[in-house]
C-alpha cells in the first residue's frame, strides 16, 4: 500500500516538475509547481514528518507560489517566445550534465544495495520532540531565521517600491493635494 502511494506521488512529482521546466507559459509552470509541492508534501508524510508536510502546503503552496503568481500577473508576463539563440546552446550541456548526475547517484545506490527504511519510531513523528529540539538545541538558528525574515520583509518592501520622485505617473496630483486644495478653497471662500 505504501509502495503504491509512493509510486503514484513520485510519478506525479516527476511529471509535474517536467512541466514546470518545459512549459512556455509562466502561469502553467507555477500551477505545476503547486502539484509538485503537493506530491512532495505527501512524500514527507509517508516519511514520518506530517508536521513538515502540512507546513510545506501552508508555506510553499499557500504563500510562496501565490507570491509568484502575483508577480507574474503584475508584470503581465507572456508565454516565452521562440528561442533567441543564445540560451539554446546551454541545453546541450544541461541535459547531458543532468543525466550524468542521475547516473552517478544511481550507480552509488545500486552498489550500496537497497536498505529498507527504518521503522517509524514515535519519537520521530511526535511534534513535541521536534519542538523541544527546535527551542533548545537550535534556538540560535531559530532566532537568526526570525531576524532573516524581518530583513527580507524590509528588503522586499524597499526593493519593490516606486521611486519617491517618480518621473512617470498619471499626471494627476496625489490624493492629499486634492484634499488640501479643497480645504484651502473652502477657507478662502468663508
Amino acid at each position, binding site marked *: 500500500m*505504501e509502495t503504491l502511494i509512493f509510486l503514484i506521488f513520485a510519478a506525479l512529482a516527476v511529471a509535474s516538475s517536467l512541466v514546470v521546466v518545459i512549459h512556455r507559459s509562466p502561469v502553467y509552470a507555477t500551477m505545476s*509547481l503547486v502539484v509538485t509541492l503537493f506530491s*512532495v508534501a505527501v512524500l514527507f508524510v509517508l516519511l514520518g514528518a506530517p508536521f513538515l508536510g502540512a507546513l510545506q502546503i501552508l508555506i510553499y503552496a499557500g504563500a510562496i507560489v501565490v507570491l509568484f503568481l502575483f508577480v507574474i500577473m503584475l508584470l503581465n508576463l507572456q508565454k516565452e517566445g521562440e528561442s533567441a539563440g543564445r540560451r539554446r546552446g546551454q541545453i546541450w550541456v*544541461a541535459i547531458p550534465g543532468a543525466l550524468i548526475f542521475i547516473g552517478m547517484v544511481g550507480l552509488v545506490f545500486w552498489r550500496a544495495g537497497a536498505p*529498507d527504511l527504518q521503522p517509524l519510531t514515535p519519537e520521530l513523528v511526535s511534534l513535541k520532540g521536534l519542538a523541544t529540539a527546535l527551542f533548545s538545541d537550535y534556538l540560535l538558528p531559530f532566532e537568526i*531565521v526570525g531576524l532573516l525574515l524581518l530583513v527580507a520583509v524590509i528588503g522586499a518592501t524597499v526593493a519593490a517600491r516606486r521611486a519617491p520622485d517618480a518621473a512617470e505617473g498619471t499626471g494627476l496630483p496625489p490624493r492629499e493635494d486634492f484634499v488640501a486644495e479643497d480645504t484651502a478653497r473652502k477657507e478662502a471662500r468663508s
Partner: protein
Amino acid sequence: MSSVPVSWYLMLAALLFAIGTVGALTRRNGISIFLSIELMLNAANLTLVAFSRQLNDHTGQLVVFFVMAVAAAEAAVGLALFIAVFRARRTIDVNRLNLMRG
C-alpha cells in the same frame, strides 16, 4: 515497516534536483528560473527528510524547517528585485539583462 527502500526516495530527490538544474540553466524567463530553483530546494528537503527517517534523528526535519523559511525569504526578496528590474528595463528575459557584461 515500510517496503520502500530509502534509496528510492533519494533517487527521486536526485531526479527532481536534476530537472530543476536543467530548468535553471535553460530557461530565459527570470521567474521560470526561480521556479526551477524552488524545485531544487524541494529536492534537497526531500533528501533531508529521508535521511532524518533513516537515521532516526530530528535534525533533518529541523533543517528542512529552516530551509523553508530561507526559501520564503529568498522568494520574497528575489521577486521584489524582479519587479524593480522590470520597472527599469521592461523585461525579465535574462538574455537581455546584460548591462554588466564585461
